[in-house]
């Protein structure tokens, strides 16, 4: 479990995240939703030690982030930020192999390569694994980075807007992979996501943020609700049930 206790962040005079507390349950997909500038990504970065927090603590399985070695944390929790701006000429396979760095320090064993191959297959990158990242489309690139995160094989996976730049097919593909990772391998996944319908269809728990505060959190079913969404987005969003899924109609 990840326990976030009274964590806050300021940039200069601007408070980006007010002291917030939230628990992320094991074996679930938790989605952070909210308007732009709500502090979702900042919170995610603090939960994964990428940026320092001004106050509060983050406990991962009961141990404070700052008390663990960064190299050990890399085997427990992985985070993928929006990385499409990275202009590095690495082959897809090399990139995914770097996911094994925490275990191998760059000297990959046979076992490490099994993880690499599996991650590549999971993300359906087999036929482009020798291509350079800069030869790929935005979506393919994103899948390659997610494959690297899979190869890192951590219990907790944090993804900052993983569907950015992806078309519908690949968005669905990635959300299905995330679902499988949770259901089959028992991973715990936290995503920052803008499309609330993907949050509705695939996550177990939703945390809604606005202006650096948590507006409301709860099981997906309770959260996808016109009243709750009005509070978060200042919009009237009708919710329809189609099949087993609640779909928000926010286009008009």
């Amino acid at each position, binding site marked *: 479990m990840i326990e976030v206790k009274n964590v806050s962040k300021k940039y200069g005079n601007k408070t980006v995240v007010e002291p917030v507390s939230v628990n992320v349950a094991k074996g679930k997909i938790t989605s952070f939703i909210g308007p732009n500038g709500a502090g979702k990504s900042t919170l995610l*970065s603090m939960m994964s030690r990428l940026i320092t927090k001004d106050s509060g603590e983050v406990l991962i399985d009961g141990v404070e982030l700052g008390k663990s070695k*960064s190299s050990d944390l*890399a085997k427990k929790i992985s985070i993928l930020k929006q990385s499409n701006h*990275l202009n*590095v000429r690495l082959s897809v396979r*090399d990139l995914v192999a770097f996911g094994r760095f925490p275990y191998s320090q760059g000297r990959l064993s046979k076992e490490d390569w099994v993880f690499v191959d599996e991650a590549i297959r999971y993300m359906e990158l087999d036929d482009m694994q020798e291509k350079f990242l800069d030869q790929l489309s935005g979506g393919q690139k994103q899948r390659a980075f997610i494959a690297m995160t899979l190869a890192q094989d951590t219990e907790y996976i944090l993804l900052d807007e993983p569907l950015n730049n992806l078309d519908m097919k690949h968005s669905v593909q990635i959300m299905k992979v995330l679902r499988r990772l949770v259901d089959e391998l028992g991973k715990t996944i936290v995503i920052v996501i803008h499309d609330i319908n993907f949050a509705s269809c695939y996550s177990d728990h939703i945390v809604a943020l606005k202006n650096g505060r948590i507006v409301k959190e709860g099981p997906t079913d309770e959260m996808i609700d016109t009243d709750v969404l009005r509070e978060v987005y200042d919009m009237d969003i009708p919710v329809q049930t189609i099949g087993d899924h609640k779909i928000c109609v926010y286009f008009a």
Partner: protein
Amino acid sequence: MKKRYLWLALIALSITSVFVGVKNITPLDLFSLTEAQQHILLVSRLPRLISIIIAGVSMSIIGLIMQQLTRNKFVSPTTAGTMDSARLGILVAMLLFTSASPLEKMLVAFVFALAGTFIFMRILDKVKYKDAIFIPLVGLMFGSIIGSVTTFFAYKHDLIQNISSWLQGDFSMVLKGRYEMLYISIPLVIIAYLYANRFTIAGMGEEFSTNLGLKYKQVVNIGLILVAAVTSVVLLTIGSIPFLGLIIPNIVTIYMGDNLKKVLPHTALLGAVFVLACDILGRVIIYPYEIPIGLTVGVIGSGIFVYLLVRRRAFA
């Protein structure tokens, strides 16, 4: 380009290099060397060959490391103020300790080169507009400022001639007993190879590195120390070889990508081959006189570089 061909070229050029010179020595003479010939081989030709290879290999590799760490293909010791800072260091060493040994000079140069490179990195952090061309321009301006300080004090103390001897790279001064400091580069290159994976990861950014549990700042600092050390060693023994650290890594990464571990051996080999070829050319072109290596590398290298730039654009 296959590694095998680079090895072949290296061997062929090495042999050529040993047998090119004013004093005629042919491969056949090897079996019946006169004392004078043996002397020339051991005191001049072989040291020259060794220093060319070490300088070519190490300058290319630190260029590659710099480009990786700054995420900019145009950054190198020449375009980031490292060279100029090292030169200022040599001047300071000459002014403060008049009888400084080469090793002491090298240490002072190293400290200055390191400080200069750190300042450049700090400027990089502050620069909001991270354009690929803008950053090396900042580096060149920064280097010129330091260079003008050096010139000012050198002028005041009548050391201009001394200082300009470090402006032009020149292998003709390499003699036994005067180049051995270059060997310091060998362990540095080995460290660079051991850290190759870490440099690649650090090149992907601080957040990317932290996620993989890599101590980003530490790795960057180690990289910069290697850069400063190699630069000052080469500067003191050979002089500056402009753009070497820029051209060679760029040629190699264009066709091989940015995975340092894979690229390093090629960069090292191509660096040695390139400097060897330029040196031999400089020695035969106005035989029996010589054109300094700084000039040949500068002319040929910048030509190749422009060609690569244009070609790369055509592919992208």
